[in-house]
């Protein structure tokens, strides 16, 4: 499908596009980010400069970026999908050689003043690539083995590069995000059944090789899994993070301890309190009311994302939006499960809340694409 097929005339042009943005999403994203600023301000002990201010600046930059991307016609993005994917893949390879080690893994690459996490960017460009691929592919052929193999390769290559960083959380998200796009594109569920069976086998393999020289995961990752299975067994060691996170969340109760009153975060009992575990501080200070509000806001964002996908008649747009929505959901689900003691600690940030430049920018870029697809949808 070429851009000629879009009925360009019915799509808004110029500044009129502003009126046709999905403003509900803009407001919701801003609201969640605002909650993030509030919590970051509180964790820093009432200090703006430490975390809240940089985060706001990034949000501002990201918002501009989002609008810019939204104004670019979606078909242009479709045509650029292959290029974006290729560049990100190259960046991932570059990280292997020139990356900065942080948190025990190679994740960042310094490009001038920007510190970039290509693995985060890959979440978006992979979705773009897959959506473009399925847009190109005859829908009747999606379940044919050869045509299934191509997207699998598109997913597995970057995933492999992320795994060896090593970054388990992101690689899992790449896998599941990619799988979600394939699912939306209509790939037969039997493939999924087969993959599930394979995964089950792999898990068994991973655990049976544990302790041998050819074990698959790092020791710390094994330990994290152990901890997940029984965090209380080692409350001062490996289980400390999860235990303290649960204490923070639980002690908030219904209404929380109040803004800036969280003892767990203020006294440093919480690990990674401003990044991956930010949700616990929210829970401690604003209680169940606060966490549920956040969950509802996330739910609304997902709702608007999904409806905008279903309203859209363009296949690339649909798959792109659904892929981004699935990724967004994965962030939330993995992070929350992790801090609430339902999943191993794998280092996935909470979207728009966790402190971190790459994630914030990538998310806003992704929402820019969603907006672009929304603005330039077939009417």
């Amino acid at each position, binding site marked *: 499908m070429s851009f000629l097929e879009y009925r360009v005339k019915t799509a808004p042009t110029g500044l009129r596009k502003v009126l046709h943005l999905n403003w509900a999403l803009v407001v919701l994203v801003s609201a969640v980010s605002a909650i993030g600023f509030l919590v970051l301000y509180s964790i820093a002990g009432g200090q703006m400069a430490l975390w809240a201010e940089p985060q706001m600046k990034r949000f501002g930059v990201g918002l501009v970026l989002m609008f810019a991307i939204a104004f670019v016609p979606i078909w242009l993005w479709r045509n650029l999908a292959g290029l974006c994917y290729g560049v990100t893949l190259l960046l991932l390879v570059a990280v292997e050689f020139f990356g900065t080690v942080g948190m025990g893994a190679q994740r960042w690459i310094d490009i001038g003043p920007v510190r970039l996490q290509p693995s985060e960017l890959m979440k978006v460009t992979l979705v773009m690539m897959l959506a473009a691929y399925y847009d190109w592919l*005859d829908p009747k052929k999606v379940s044919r083995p050869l045509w299934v193999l191509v997207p699998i390769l598109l997913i597995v290559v970057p995933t492999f590069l992320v795994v060896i960083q090593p970054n388990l959380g992101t690689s899992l998200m790449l896998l599941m995000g990619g799988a979600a796009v394939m699912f939306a594109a209509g790939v037969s569920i039997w493939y999924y059944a087969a993959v599930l069976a394979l995964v089950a086998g792999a898990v068994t393999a991973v655990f049976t090789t544990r302790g041998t020289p050819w074990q698959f995961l790092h020791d710390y990752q094994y330990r994290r899994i152990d901890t997940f299975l029984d965090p209380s067994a080692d409350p001062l060691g490996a289980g400390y993070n999860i235990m303290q996170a649960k204490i923070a969340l639980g002690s908030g109760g219904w209404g929380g301890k109040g803004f800036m009153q969280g*003892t767990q975060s203020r*006294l440093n009992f919480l690990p990674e309190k401003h990044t991956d575990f930010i949700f616990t501080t929210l829970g401690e200070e604003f209680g169940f009311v606060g966490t549920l509000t956040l969950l509802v806001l996330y739910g609304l964002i997902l709702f608007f994302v999904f409806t905008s*996908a279903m309203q859209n008649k363009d296949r690339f747009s649909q798959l792109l939006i659904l892929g981004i929505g699935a990724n967004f959901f994965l962030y939330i689900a993995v992070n929350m499960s992790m801090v609430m003691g339902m999943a191993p600690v794998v280092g996935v940030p909470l979207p728009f809340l966790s402190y971190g430049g790459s994630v914030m920018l990538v998310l806003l870029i992704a929402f820019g694409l969603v907006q672009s697809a929304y603005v330039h949808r077939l009417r």
Partner: protein
Amino acid sequence: MRRTARDSEDSARRVNRRALLMGGAFGAMFAVLGARMRFLSVEQADEFRLLAEENRINMRLIPPERGLIQDRNGKLVAGNEQNYRVTITREDAGDVEAVLNRLSHLIPLTQDDLERVRKDIERNSPFVPIIVADRVAWDDFAKIALNAPTLPGVTPEVGLSRHYPLVEDFSHVVGYVGPVSERDLAELTDPDPVLKIPKFQIGKIGVERWMEDTLRGSAGNKRIEVNAVGRVMRELERTEGTPGADIQLTIDADIQNFVQVRLGDLSAACVVIDVNTGELVACTSAPGFDPNLFVRGISQRDYSTLMEDDHRPLANKSVQGAYPPGSTFKVVTALAALEAGVITPETTHYCPGYIEFGNRRFHCWKHGGHGTVNLTRSLEQSCDVFYYEVAQKVGIDAIAAMGKRMGLGVRHDLPMSAITEGIMPNKEWKQERWGQDWRIGDTINASIGQGYILASPLQLAVMVARVATGRAVEPRLVKSIGGKPVEMPTPPLLDIDASHLRAVQAGMDAVMNSERGTAKSSRIADETMLMAGKTGTSQVRNISAAERARGVTSNDDLPWERRDHALFVGFAPVDAPRYAVATVVEHGGGGSTVAAPIARDALLRALTGGIPPLDAYPAAQRGRIETDLNALREKLRVTTTPQTTRA
């Protein structure tokens, strides 16, 4: 390649179906997350809230400051001094060996110290501070503080520690404190949590132990907020404890010191008691020891030195030592006879130097005998035969009863360790103890304070005080607690005929002040302070026939540990008694030559309130006494102004 609109719509519908499926799955996951939030924050909230508080808040006990012990004039006997110590925490030290090595260049540390530290470090958790050096000199302490950056994990600390400025003078009375041991804890049914504070000190013996509850006070506590690594962020709440109550003893530290020095190297005890109130003015046992050694944790070598000394410095001979009272007991026999009506003050007996009973001959100490003696003469010259005769008529039970009335064979309740009850035997006692009948020979022995009778210097002092006043004087050691004076009612009368008491007192007067008195050489010459007394010499064992054959006739020929004990009891002034004294010099020989001079000096010291003036002594002795007193003055502890302030 173009697709039909129908194809496109088909595929779009298909995507929408899949989208709905995904949306449904996501929604379900959100429901699970929401439920989990509810579970944690609502259902388990209380539990987690508690855990959060436990995380955050630590309770710390504030050890109370131990009460001071002062003498009757407020002079400090036991106080608390600042104690600088150095600790090391393995966790923070990193390379422990390197740090210890650097530390040993800064402050004196022996190889033993280092060995102990290494052992302690191994035994304890890495975050437990181990004491490297205790009682560090200020200079060394400052050096460590200065070098802190190169000594990770090393912390200079300041604490309070017990200190006994008068060293050995009160070692037996006041005792000492030491770290709480497992045994201390086991003895208590409900141990005060403050005892679990590391380095907390508890009274081990003496007043420190027996008045522990008064001295300890109660712990305060503080609730502190700590962060994840245990650093104290702020104090939330502080409840001050109550410091222990100060205790003022009845003992005068200066008199105590004088007597202690006077006893010198002897293995001896001397008790001075206020006859009107029962207040112990001095209660000494020589040799003493330095209680500060025990507070610090005594070294094995120091301890064995103390244990192996045949003069037994650790024993509190004044209350713990039980000695045959010897002739000092004649006072009791005489009173028993008078009260029983067996004799009057005028009754006389003839002393040929011995009496024969059955096939046994009981000697008087004087070979030729005393001739005809009445009560006064019998005391004055300490005639044994008089009492042999009298005792047979009175019987042991009456004598024992009188002994108990005079405070012998009775445990006097004082806050000191190992107070002996002594032995005041009667027929029943012998039957119970030995399963034998009481024999008349036992009575004869008992009449002169030999045989089964045992009494401590404290009991003898009480006995004299009772003889001097006719009142049931009870010894007292504590003058006030926490500034509140302990009530000291006038002791009740003993219900002994005044004329009988006077007769005995006259006899004791004669011992000192008559021409033939056994202790006339130890008399006080000052008319206003004349003293009365009674000597005693108690045999540790008889001189055997074999020894006699070898030419051993006197004590001086025997090895020290087999010589007689020298005893003396007395009071002064004779006409208006104020102080009574009892002195025992272990293996000292004769009571009149060894014990009586000590007792005289002690009484004079108490009566005059200073070094005894020379004119209180008989003119003939003054030259020698002056030399002695001067030598003694050299050794006295320099009197300091009363210390009442807390450390």
